[in-house]
C-alpha cells in the first residue's frame, strides 16, 4: 500500500467541477454502468475517499454497498446541484438501525 492516497469526486459536471480547484480528482460521469466501473477502478488505485453526488450514488447503489464494510475507500454522499435528496442522511439512519436494532435517531 502506498503512503499517499488521493481523493476523488464523482458526479455531473455542474455539481463537481468546483472541487477541481481544491485539488481533488474530478470525474464527470452520469451513466450507471460507468459509475460502477469507475468506483471499482478508483478503489484499487489508491483512492481513500470518494465523494459522490446523491443521484450518481443512487445509480450505483450495489457497488457502493460492496465497499461499505471494507476499510478503504470511504464513499461519502454529497448533494448534487439540483438539491439534497436526503440519501446521505438515510444511510446514517440505516447504520444506526443495523447497530442498535431500531432507528433511534428519529426521536
Amino acid at each position, binding site marked *: 500500500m502506498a503512503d*499517499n492516497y488521493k481523493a476523488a469526486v464523482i458526479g455531473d459536471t455542474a455539481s463537481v467541477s468546483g472541487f477541481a480547484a*481544491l485539488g481533488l480528482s474530478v470525474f464527470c460521469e452520469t451513466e450507471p454502468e460507468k459509475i460502477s466501473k469507475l468506483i471499482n477502478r478508483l478503489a484499487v488505485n489508491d483512492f481513500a475517499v470518494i465523494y459522490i453526488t446523491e443521484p450518481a450514488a443512487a445509480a450505483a447503489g450495489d457497488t457502493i454497498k460492496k465497499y461499505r464494510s471494507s476499510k478503504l475507500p470511504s464513499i461519502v454522499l454529497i448533494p448534487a446541484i439540483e438539491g*439534497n435528496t436526503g440519501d446521505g*442522511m438515510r444511510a446514517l439512519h440505516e*447504520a444506526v438501525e443495523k447497530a*442498535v436494532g431500531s432507528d433511534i435517531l428519529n426521536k
Partner: protein
Amino acid sequence: MARLNVNPTRMELSKLKKKLDSARRGHKLLKDKRDELMRQFMNLIRENRQLRAEVEEAIKAADRYMAVAGSVMQREALETALMLPKQEVELEVGEKNVMSVYIPVFSPKYRTDDTNDIYSYGTAFTSIDLDGAVKALSEVFPKMIRLAEVEKACQLMADEIEKTRRRVNALEHIMIPDYEETIKYITMKLSENERSTTTSLMKVKDMVLKDSHHYH
C-alpha cells in the same frame, strides 16, 4: 432447549463444565465489548449527523454560487478556469483501533502551504461568483475529510456491533442453556446409576447372607 448429544460419563461432565465456564466468561467479555462499542458508536453517530448537516449546507451554498457563475460565464470559460488546479490534495491514511475495529484516519496534505492559494485562474475573465463557490468549498473541505472518516467509522462499527450482538445472543440464549441442561442430565444419569448399583449390591448382600447363615 436441546440437550447435547453426548455420553453421560464423568469425563464428558468435566469437559462440559469447563466449556460452560469459558462460555460464561466469553459472554461477559462480549457483552462489555458490545456496550462499549455502542457507547462510542452513539458519540460518532451524533458527530456524523452534525457534520453531514453542515457539509450539506455548505455544498448547497457553494452550488448556488456555482449556478450563478455558470449562468453569467460561458461553460467553456468556466471549465478552462478550473481545468488546471494550483492546489493538490493527498491524503495520508492512518489507522485507529477502537475496540478491535480498525478505522481509517485521514490527514490531508496540500501541495502549496498557503491554503488560501486556491484560485487557479486570473480574476479578469471570471465571475466573482466562481470565487465564492471555490472559497465556500475550500472552507468546508476539512469538514468533508472528517466526514469521510466518521462515516466510514460508523459503517465499520455498525457491522462490528451487529456481529458482537449476535455472538452475545448466541451464547446467552443457546450455548449456555444447552450446556447447563446437558450437565444437569449427566449429573442425574450418574446419580441414578449410583443408586441402582447400591440397591443391587444390597440385594446381593442379602442373598449371600441368606445362603451362608440360613437367615430368614
